[in-house]
């Protein structure tokens, strides 16, 4: 058996490396950047363009993996029944879900590197370090999306976190930046330590760290009521919740975002949330048995009974807290930090449905969230470069200084709010639609409590959209309606136009948001898939919830 396995591994190592190509490219990029730093010729150059090329190429590789998906999943030697394939002896999994997240992450990193080139936040001599940290963190995130073993889960989360800590403190001389990094590293390493303890209990108790085996074990009725297992799962979810900034593990998020540069905030808010959501989706849906080849209705029914209320409660608390706390903020980065907490809650609502369509809606939301949140942080970075301020009290009447910037900020904030015809609306619509569908589905399955939970989630989502209105519009009100200092003192207002290339960057992001808000069918088709089995969709690795058995209802009256 071991010999057969060894042969198999040797045969598949080349293929595994091909499926791991985007990450390998980033690893190579790290080495190249660090070596170039050693050469006196490039020591003083900004290496951002090289980083941009590497990230772009890695993204291209990930896209080509997507189109090779049918052949990739077809060669699965270890478990031919499933629509996914394991890499490196089962440590990682390659399915359309993980490849989708990889494309998402790498496209995002490319855009962030472009943004840093425009704003010039890493100094020329620090540029190599900055991009090495970004790349290292990205490798960790893409491994989070494809982890198939608890050891990989831990390594991936640590690989994501360690560079993020350093990135938060990248502005070395700033008091606030060093404070943000200290808070992040203290909370973060504490959370990952606790998570590791949970992993040690889970892996030791199940006798393996292989995620499908553990999920199968967890979905056996009665296992989760054993205290050791329950503690292990709770600690594991705590670690993921920390990366996701879900309430009550959100406390690091506002401080880190306020202290770190806006570009770093953009990176952390979108990429690390996306990766954490992917991991949460894989674990939660796997516990429901939806990643098995054949879904066992009994397992699914038992798991949703306790997992759906837990996820729903956390989602509602997270969204509501984020929106309420954002209202009093005057620092733009801090306000956006609370807004990202609220959005993480919205995405958790999609996962709380515990259906494959829920995962698809979350992926749709993530893609839209990428553009609108990156846009909002980019505007903050540009405003900081123009005025040196990130506090809205200094930005009264900013529309008279730089109308284009305020209009763009308006587009991004209103999209975050979910106003049609912007993409934020279509994303929220997807989430609400799957929540509503799942409520009806739970009712059909004879689970009225869960159905009502879903209706409560729906109501909370609607209420939170209204709550979010106040703080997003408040920012715009201050910038558009209030008078500038010069106006009050009867002096001419000093205009501060932004460079054309910055305007072009923002316009592209805004155009994508507008486009996705009007034509969202293609993206939805990639996220959800169609009835056609030959078309690859991102949630192919998950199965649909088993249909209702009609037999038991035909009782004699």
């Amino acid at each position, binding site marked *: 058996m071991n010999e057969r396995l060894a042969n198999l591994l040797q045969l598949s190592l080349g293929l595994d490396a091909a499926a791991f190509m985007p990450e390998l490219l980033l690893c190579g990029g790290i080495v190249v950047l660090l070596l170039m730093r050693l050469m006196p010729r490039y020591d003083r150059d900004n290496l951002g363009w090289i980083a941009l090329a590497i990230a772009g190429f890695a993204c291209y590789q990930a896209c080509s993996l997507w189109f090779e998906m049918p052949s990739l999943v077809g060669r699965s030697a270890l478990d031919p029944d499933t629509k996914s394939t394991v890499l490196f002896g089962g440590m990682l999994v390659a399915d359309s879900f993980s490849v989708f997240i990889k494309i998402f992450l790498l496209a995002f990193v490319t855009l962030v590197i472009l943004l840093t080139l425009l704003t010039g936040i890493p100094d020329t001599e620090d540029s190599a370090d900055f991009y090495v940290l970004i790349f290292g963190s990205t490798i960790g995130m893409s491994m989070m999306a494809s982890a198939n073993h608890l*050891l990989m889960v*831990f*390594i991936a989360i*640590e690989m994501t976190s*360690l560079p993020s*800590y*350093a990135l938060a*403190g990248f502005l*070395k*001389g*700033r*008091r*606030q930046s*060093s*404070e*943000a*990094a*200290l*808070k992040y*590293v*203290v909370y973060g*390493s*504490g959370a*990952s*330590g*606790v998570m*590791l*303890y949970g*992993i*040690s*209990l889970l*892996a*030791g*108790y199940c*006798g*393996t*760290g292989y995620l499908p085996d553990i999920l199968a074990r967890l979905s056996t009725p009665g296992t989760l009521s054993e205290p050791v297992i329950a503690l292990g799962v709770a600690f594991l979810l705590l670690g993921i919740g920390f990366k996701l900034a879900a309430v009550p593990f959100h406390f690091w998020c*506002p*401080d880190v975002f*306020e*202290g770190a540069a806006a570009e770093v905030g953009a990176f952390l808010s979108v990429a690390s949330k996306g990766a954490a959501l992917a991991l949460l989706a894989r674990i939660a849906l796997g516990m429901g048995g939806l990643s098995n080849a054949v879904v066992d209705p009994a397992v699914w029914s038992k798991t949703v009974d306790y997992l759906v209320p837990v996820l729903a409660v956390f989602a509602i608390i997270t969204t509501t807290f984020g929106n309420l706390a954002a209202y*009093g*903020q005057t*620092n733009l980065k*801090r306000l956006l930090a609370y807004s990202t907490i609220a959005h993480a809650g919205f995405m958790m609502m999609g996962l709380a449905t515990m259906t494959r369509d829920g995962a698809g809606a979350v992926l749709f939301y993530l893609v839209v969230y990428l553009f609108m949140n990156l846009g909002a942080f980019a505007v903050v970075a540009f405003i900081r470069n123009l005025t040196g301020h990130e506090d809205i009290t200094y930005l009264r009447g900013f529309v008279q200084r730089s109308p284009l910037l305020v209009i763009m900020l308006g587009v991004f904030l209103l999209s975050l709010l979910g106003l049609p015809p912007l993409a934020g609306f279509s994303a929220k619509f997807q989430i609400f639609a799957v929540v509503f569908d799942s409520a009806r589905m739970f009712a059909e399955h004879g689970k009225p409590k869960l159905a009502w939970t879903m209706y409560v989630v729906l109501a909370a989502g609607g209420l939170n959209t209204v709550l979010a209105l106040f703080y997003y519009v408040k920012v715009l009100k201050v910038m558009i309606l209030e008078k500038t200092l010069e106006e009050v003192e009867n002096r001419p207002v000093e205009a501060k136009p932004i460079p054309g290339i910055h305007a072009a960057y923002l316009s592209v992001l805004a155009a994508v948001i507008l486009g996705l808000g009007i034509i969202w069918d293609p993206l939805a088709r990639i996220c959800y898939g169609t009835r056609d089995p030959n078309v690859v969709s991102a949630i192919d690795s998950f199965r649909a919830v088993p249909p209702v058995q009609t037999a038991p209802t035909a009782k004699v009256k």
Partner: protein
Amino acid sequence: MSEGVALYPYLVLGALLFTCGVICMATKRNAIGVLIGVELVLNGSNINFVAFSQYNPDFQVEGMIFALFVIVMAAGEAAVALAIVLNFYNNHSTVDVDSAEELKG
């Protein structure tokens, strides 16, 4: 393999280290002290891994590999954390975590 080796004393030791570490993280005001608490937690989990690997033949290799990787990760984490603490000291002239209070709200 597992004859004569009782699992529970090791698990209790691991739990004890974990508890000490969490208490240390929660109560210490010195940033270095908090990091020592983190190391205690990591070592508590490591004892679990090694004990389980000794007790369970299926988990033997996996547990050891877990433990090795955790040691490496702990070293990396300590290096990054200490660098950040040093940076904080350079800016604030203290490593008291309670003095990190400029960011709030």
